[in-house]
């Protein structure tokens, strides 16, 4: 507990508590539409946090995180549809499968010392490859899609993840909070310092005795496992899975947008980014609906992202954090 809040200024803790209370109370005072937007926001905050763990902490660029979402989603959905095994058990299979896939890619990549852009392309290749393979597996619904039985939205069955919108909201909120705590603990642990050493200078880290292969693998394993859990939630929230849309590179890009906008390598960057981008997308949709021109929304979208990369390349969180005076007081703790 001490490690969790050490060095965080009091007003930061207060602000965090206020945000947490607001989020927990949200289902009681917002409309269904706002709640559905919040659910998507939290989904991207969570997956962004998981992605950020690899690139922001350990410096490993993955552009294929949709792979882990897809594996988690398909694994749990297959167990549920074919064997009636609920997600409470399926989530473990999903984590195992995602971690196995992540470790496989990581093993191949790090073993043959593939890094930087090449590693990123390897992750894209695996995601696209898996998507095409799933496309041809009849057992997983192939191109026609994989559908979970539509649930009763009134009752709440947490073990089987069947229930109301609010239940899905609390599940993803809990996951996001847990991921935040986990990342905070990891970042300030010995493991986290090893990762940051690798991120800053791989050769130097190796020279002082950091086992590159081992710690990179741990980063990939944790990140892919966390993302796999998001996959389970995704499958049971949307109730339908299509290989083309689940594994596409576009989906991986959606995951990384939040952290990049918010600030790669920061704890609150992925969350802030998701809270900015998803509502922005919704606003753009409603604004451009009347125009009846295809592509206007995407045009704005691309322009926003380009503007952030060009004018705020460190992301928005470091800037907002210093505006609010939330920077840690300790020396040498800042990025």
């Amino acid at each position: 507990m001490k490690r969790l809040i050490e060095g965080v200024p009091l007003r930061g803790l207060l602000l965090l508590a206020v945000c947490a209370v607001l989020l927990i109370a949200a289902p009681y005072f917002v409309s269904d539409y706002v709640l559905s937007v919040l659910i998507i926001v939290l989904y991207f905050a969570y997956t962004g946090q998981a992605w950020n763990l690899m690139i922001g902490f350990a410096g490993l660029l993955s552009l294929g995180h949709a792979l882990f979402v897809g594996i988690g989603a398909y694994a749990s959905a297959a167990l549920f549809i074919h064997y009636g095994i609920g997600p409470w058990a399926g989530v473990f299979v999903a984590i195992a499968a995602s971690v196995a896939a992540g470790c496989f890619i990581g093993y191949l990549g790090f073993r043959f010392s593939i890094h930087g852009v090449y590693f990123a392309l390897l992750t894209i290749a695996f995601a696209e490859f898996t998507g095409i393979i799933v496309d041809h597996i009849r057992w997983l619904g192939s191109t026609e899609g994989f559908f979970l039985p539509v649930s009763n939205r009134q009752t709440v069955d947490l073990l089987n993840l069947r229930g109301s919108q609010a239940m899905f909201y609390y599940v993803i909120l809990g996951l996001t909070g847990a991921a935040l705590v986990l990342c905070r603990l990891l970042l300030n642990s010995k493991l986290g310092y090893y990762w940051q050493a690798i991120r800053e200078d791989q050769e130097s880290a190796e020279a002082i005795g950091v086992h590159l292969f081992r710690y990179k693998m741990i980063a990939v394993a944790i990140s892919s496992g966390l993302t796999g859990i998001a996959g389970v939630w995704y499958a049971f929230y949307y109730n339908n899975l299509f290989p083309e849309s689940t594994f596409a590179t576009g989906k991986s890009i959606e995951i990384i947008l939040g952290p990049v906008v918010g600030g790669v390598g920061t704890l609150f960057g992925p969350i802030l980014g998701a809270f900015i981008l998803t509502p922005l997308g919704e606003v753009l949709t409603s604004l451009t609906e009347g125009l009846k021109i295809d592509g206007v929304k995407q045009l704005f979208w691309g322009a926003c992202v380009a503007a952030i990369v060009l004018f705020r390349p460190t992301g928005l969180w470091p800037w907002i954090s210093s505006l609010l005076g939330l920077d840690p007081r300790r020396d040498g703790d800042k990025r």
Partner: protein
Amino acid sequence: MPAEIYLNVAVSGLLTGLIYGLSTLGLSVIFGVIRIVNFAHGEIMVVGMFVTLMLFRWLGIDPLLSIPIVAVALFGFGYLLQDWVVRRVAHLADHMQFLLMAAVAVILISACLMIFGPDAQGVQVAYALESYQVGPLIVDKVRLIAGIAALVVAGALFAFFRYTATGKAIRACGDNYAGALVVGLNVRRLFALTFGIGCACLGAAGAILLLIVDVHPYLGPAYTLLAFIIVIVGGMGSLPGAMLGGILIGMSEALAGILLQPSLKSAFSFGLLILVLLLRPQGLLGKAAR
């Protein structure tokens, strides 16, 4: 199935592969010199295809004749893109550069969508249905012309980098950035030129490709991924490697299309990519990583 079918498919794959190779030259030149992975590659080529389409529709210019026009137009586009936008992210981390190029790609797709609509559109040239017969081999005239045109443009590019002073200066920037600055090369201008040349390749490849493929805005991402596969198989930054990779992927795609299922052909290419990344990460003709 008789052997002639495989031969025919292989030849047609080879000719398509030459066009792939030409377009990948654009990616390879940019990466080899500026060290930026152009994630908007396919989208820029689609823009080239649309420009060719407009020239054909409005002025009746044959796609083959419009190659130089499209190449010049996209050269200008690439030059300005590098000088105004991409240059500003050169010092940022890989993922930021990636994101900027992905944003450029999204902007280009949506601009094409707004201007040209979502439907697939193609050109119908007079010689579209003609073919040559050599023994058991039947070669589409369009494909043959397209393949030869791709070879010619690629040859011109090789000559440019090998024999002209500007070409050598560009290679110098790629080989040793600091050295190029020290000897007084105008690196900023040369980088912009490089990006322009890369995009000109894409324009030429797009113009040629329009002969055999109908264009629509969503064509871009598939070609971006395809070019990545080719450039890694052939070797990032290696120009002959890009052509070789293009031919290999073109042929393997065509053969996978009849041996397995057409829908599995890209899985086959991705499989090839994974193999190459593992066994020879610098690519078939690439230099060892620095």
